[in-house]
């Protein structure tokens, strides 16, 4: 079992920070996560010690940057069980998912083709496909979810036919935190010749992910949800598809050579997708983040989060003033409301008690149909949250009423 009190010492944000005069309890980890000192050091190391461009210079410092930059790619590849040529650096999961829709979808899709997704998707997973379908004449259809809001392999298979060319789904959804049966889905999709694009934003930071084992065709994640820097993320893609697809951007760094007649020869993947000077410090920070996660162990992180989640949800379920929408979530995401209190008013009450949670309106149809509400509060755990923090959160939960939620304004 991981030693959470020892781990917390690695994070400056967990050392004595206060919010609204109260000790800060950070439960918005599905939005972004805190950084350990080793990640902060890796970022400043670039600016302090090796602040030159990558892939550009003939001098020693530049070579050193290249070496560190490419070793980060190897670290990511090992982390996902991929080949390093299959790791494209992007600004985050959103850019990665847009890159697949633009570079792969637009080239592949024709009128009559179908893109399959679900109503539980994050905007970054679904909006690029809406646009791509509009442009190509393909059709975007949604797999029905079960009563609980889950995607099942059975429901998925019922939607499959040979018109389906793309399946775009989150491995763990960001509102309800359910894990989809990704391996089965890839297996079924491939039987029909469809490609599977996995949004790993909420899964990669919390559980072991092996792209070879799941056999997905693309997978995207953001480093900042994994204790890494903001502005950096990854698109994994099977090499033959990366090789076939178009880049999103053209420019310095992605071309091997070009001439005035309009002939462009692009570099091989992953470099053909990486135009312009990249976020070098963020790439080095992402490497440090993965090393940090590895040093704790992803299995341990996953198990700890599940246990803490169970501890919190079991107690929330006993409170008459709360509604929990996803008690059987597979992740650290708890979606709930205070009865008769609008989500944002509830979130402000937690803020007044030093607790960071998020209120939000989610995919309206999913929420209205499955949950019967237009807005919810989301508390999301990570491996550095403690039982002591959970107890304070639960105490504040028990005091949440409309009257108390309004008293914070007086």
């Amino acid at each position, binding site marked *: 079992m991981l030693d959470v009190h020892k781990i917390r010492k690695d994070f400056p944000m967990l050392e004595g920070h206060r919010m609204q005069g109260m000790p800060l309890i950070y439960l918005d980890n599905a939005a972004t996560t805190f950084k350990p000192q080793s990640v902060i050091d890796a970022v400043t190391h670039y600016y302090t010690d090796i602040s030159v461009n990558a892939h550009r210079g003939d001098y020693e410092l530049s070579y050193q940057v290249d070496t560190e930059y490419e070793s980060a790619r190897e670290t990511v590849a090992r982390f996902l069980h991929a080949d390093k040529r299959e790791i494209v650096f992007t600004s985050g999961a959103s850019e990665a998912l847009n890159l697949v829709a633009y570079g792969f979808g637009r080239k592949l899709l024709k009128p009559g083709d179908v893109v399959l997704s679900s109503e539980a998707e994050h905007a970054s997973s679904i909006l690029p496909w809406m646009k791509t379908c509009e442009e190509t004449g393909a059709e975007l259809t949604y797999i029905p979810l079960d009563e609980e809001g889950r995607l099942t392999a059975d429901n998925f298979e019922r939607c499959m036919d040979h018109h389906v060319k793309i399946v775009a789904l989150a491995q763990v959804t960001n509102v309800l935190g359910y894990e989809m049966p990704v391996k089965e889905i890839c297996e079924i999709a491939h039987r029909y010749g469809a490609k599977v694009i996995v949004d790993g934003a909420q899964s990669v930071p919390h559980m072991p992910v092996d792209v070879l084992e799941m056999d997905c065709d693309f997978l995207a994640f953001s480093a900042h949800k994994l204790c890494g820097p903001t502005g950096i993320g990854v698109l994994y893609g099977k090499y033959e598809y990366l090789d076939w697809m178009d880049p999103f951007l053209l420019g310095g760094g992605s071309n091997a050579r070009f001439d005035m007649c309009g002939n462009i020869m692009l570099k091989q993947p992953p470099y053909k997708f990486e135009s312009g000077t990249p976020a070098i410090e963020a790439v080095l920070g992402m490497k440090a983040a993965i090393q940090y996660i590895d040093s704790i162990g992803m299995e341990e992180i996953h198990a700890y989060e599940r246990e803490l989640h169970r501890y919190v949800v079991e107690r929330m379920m006993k409170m008459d003033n709360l509604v929990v929408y996803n008690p059987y979530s597979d992740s650290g995401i708890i979606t709930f409301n205070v009865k008769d*209190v*609008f*989500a*944002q*008013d509830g979130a*402000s009450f937690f*803020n*007044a008690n030093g607790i960071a949670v998020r*209120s*939000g*309106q989610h995919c309206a149809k999913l929420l209205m149909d499955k949950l019967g509400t*237009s*807005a919810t509060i989301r508390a999301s755990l990570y491996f550095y949250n403690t039982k002591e923090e959970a107890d304070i959160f639960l105490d504040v939960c028990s005091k949440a009423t*409309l*009257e108390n*939620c*309004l*008293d*914070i*304004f*007086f």
Partner: protein
Amino acid sequence: MSDMLHDPMVLRQIIMDHYEYPRNHELSKDAGYCQKHMASDSCIDDIYVQAKIANGVIDDIRFDGVACTISTASTSIMSELLQGKSIAEARQILEQYYAMIDGKNYDAQMLEEAVAFHNVGRQANRIKCATIGWKAIEELMDESEKAHEQE
């Protein structure tokens, strides 16, 4: 009125009352109304505000939509407070309301029940909830005056 300022229980009661029983909370289909859709990009509030303005006087204000306690109650109070006022009078009240929200001196007498929001700035991200309906009526008054000038 000044006593009310010091009694949180009364102020809370005002907000709860306007949240649970919002006034003028139904949109009109009458062609004499102008309408504003106010959807904040940083919070959940998504409301429609209508005003019937004739000869420089606000005859009626109505609103509807999905919104939190603070925006529902502040818009409801605004709709009562500004009804029947001239645009010039309404602008004076608006000025006092914004001054209060910004923590500056203001005329509590003029704001009546709207003083309930005098501490909303303690939750800085909720200031937009307390002003969303007020911004809507301000825009509707601007449009009305502009249309009048063009006539």
